[in-house]
């Protein structure tokens, strides 16, 4: 804790000294009379100012929250020597906001303890650190002040809010474990697939008696079994576009959290790849623990500018299991992601690309040169989209004003109309 004199205290001292010297030099007592109140003010500042010996703690009412929640920061302050004027402010990271501001002014008597509650609004997902609390304590005339910090930084995990989805993108291939996805294979299940002749070992309950009566031999039902699938969420962290308080990376993280949660509820295994300047990955697994692992990894993901070449070879083989559904969330800003995704498609992965559109975040073109550059850029994005579609990859655009469910429905429609390679 350090004490600082206000510039006014030095100014008053200088005025008092100048008045005394001027009085001595000019022989006029009026100069001394002018100096007297300022000398008194300096004396008052020196006598009233005292180190408040402030101590305290900073706590949060919880460690995890969701976007839109309100978290209460509780500050307990004790001034052993008292503070006539105490101003406290809690510096807020960009993920948090405060309705009435995070600053407060109060008085604290000697030995008194005061508890303050500051409601904080979780505006954006992330893993911000809240604290320490900054304070300025001073005498009643604000001629001397003491500055310092109270409390330790507290980690708060703000999870992304989820989009509403009516259905998920069904995979082309399923895995061998049971789940909620209807497999294309034939076996025991609920969805009817086909009829075939009875073979030794078939259960009697599978016999289709009506077909058997018509054909004069035993025919059995075949169903599509319910299997799970492996889903890998592939997030482009090379670059983003930000504007109007939002960004493409924020929306991509919200979409990834939503998809991870929904697929895990369907007993699927979900993995994560953060492909960018900083590579991160999670091997596919199932259960709520995997959901928390995925969301915690997403919270710490950030756009890191890098010129290094990145390929899917750099990822551990278990990160991308065979026949996995890869859902890529990318704003189409970096060619390295396009190269990696087309590489995945060439290796036979079931790939879906969701373009997180940055066009709505851009400022309008200022002149004809800007407009021409914007048009060329849009054409290059169209060309990239065409490359994906030629490879049989469904590419859907997710604009800022539409729910995530809309582009995912387009994927289903694309697959119905086009036969994947």
């Amino acid at each position, binding site marked *: 804790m350090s004490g600082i004199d206000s510039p*006014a205290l030095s100014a008053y001292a200088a005025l008092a000294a100048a008045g005394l010297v001027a009085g001595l030099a000019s022989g006029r007592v009026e100069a001394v009379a*002018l100096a007297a109140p300022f000398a008194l003010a300096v004396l008052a500042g020196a006598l009233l100012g005292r180190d408040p010996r402030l101590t305290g703690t900073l706590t949060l009412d919880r460690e995890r929250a969701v976007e839109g929640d309100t978290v209460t920061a509780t500050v307990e302050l004790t001034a052993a020597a008292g503070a006539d004027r105490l*101003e406290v402010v809690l510096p807020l990271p960009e993920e948090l906001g405060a309705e*009435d501001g995070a600053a407060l002014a109060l008085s604290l008597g000697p030995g008194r303890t005061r508890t303050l509650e500051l409601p904080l609004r979780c505006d954006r997902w992330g893993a911000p650190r809240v604290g320490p609390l900054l304070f300025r304590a001073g005498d009643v005339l604000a001629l001397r002040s003491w500055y310092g910090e109270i409390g330790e930084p507290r980690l708060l995990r703000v999870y992304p809010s989820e989009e509403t989805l009516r259905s998920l993108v069904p995979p082309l291939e399923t895995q061998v474990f049971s789940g909620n996805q209807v497999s294309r294979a034939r076996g025991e299940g609920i969805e009817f697939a086909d009829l075939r002749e009875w073979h030794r070992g078939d259960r009697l309950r599978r016999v289709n008696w009506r077909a058997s009566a018509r054909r004069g031999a035993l025919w059995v039902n075949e169903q599509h079994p319910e299997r799970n699938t492996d889903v890998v969420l592939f997030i482009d962290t090379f670059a983003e576009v930000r504007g109007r308080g939002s960004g493409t990376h924020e929306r991509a993280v919200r979409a990834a959290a939503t998809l991870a949660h929904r697929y895990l509820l369907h007993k699927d295994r979900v993995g994560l790849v953060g492909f960018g300047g900083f590579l991160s990955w999670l091997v596919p697994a199932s259960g709520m623990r995997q959901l928390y692992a995925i969301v915690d990894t997403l919270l710490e993901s950030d756009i890191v500018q890098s010129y290094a070449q990145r390929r899917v070879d750099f990822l551990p083989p278990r990160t991308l299991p065979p026949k996995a559904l890869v859902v890529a969330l990318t704003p189409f800003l970096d060619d390295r992601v396009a190269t990696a995704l087309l590489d995945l498609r060439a290796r036979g992965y079931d790939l879906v690309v969701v373009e997180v559109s940055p066009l709505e975040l851009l400022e309008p073109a200022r002149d004809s040169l800007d407009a021409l550059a914007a048009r060329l850029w849009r054409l290059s994005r169209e060309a990239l989209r065409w490359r994906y579609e030629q490879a049989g990859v469904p590419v859907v655009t997710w604009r800022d004003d539409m729910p995530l469910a809309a582009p995912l429905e387009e994927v289903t429609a694309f697959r119905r109309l086009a036969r994947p390679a």
Partner: protein
Amino acid sequence: MGGALLLLALVRGGARTLGWALALAGAAYVGALAARRHGLDGTAPLVATALLLCGELARWSIDLRVRIRGAELPARKRAAAVAALALAGLAASGIAVGVAAAPTGHGLGWTLLGAIAAVGATGVGAWLARRPV
């Protein structure tokens, strides 16, 4: 010029500019008295208090530019402190003018009193400068 500097200090929010504004105003007052070879001016304590109030209220207005929730209670305390300081300053100025106006003679006693006052003022200044922060 003092008034212009005061306006500038209020606009820019600078305490140092405020000090110069007060210094210029005070110097203009004393200079006018000296130029007119005026006798002892009995309104000097009022001028001194007015200058102090000017400085304190200007500082307060600059501090209030950052609005903070709950600043009402400390504001009432500060208002009382400024008023008390102004009254004390008026009394101190009045004593200085009153002592100067009182008929006095010459002699060792008055010289000693003046020397003690000068040493005392210097000692207080030294103590203020050397106190720990």
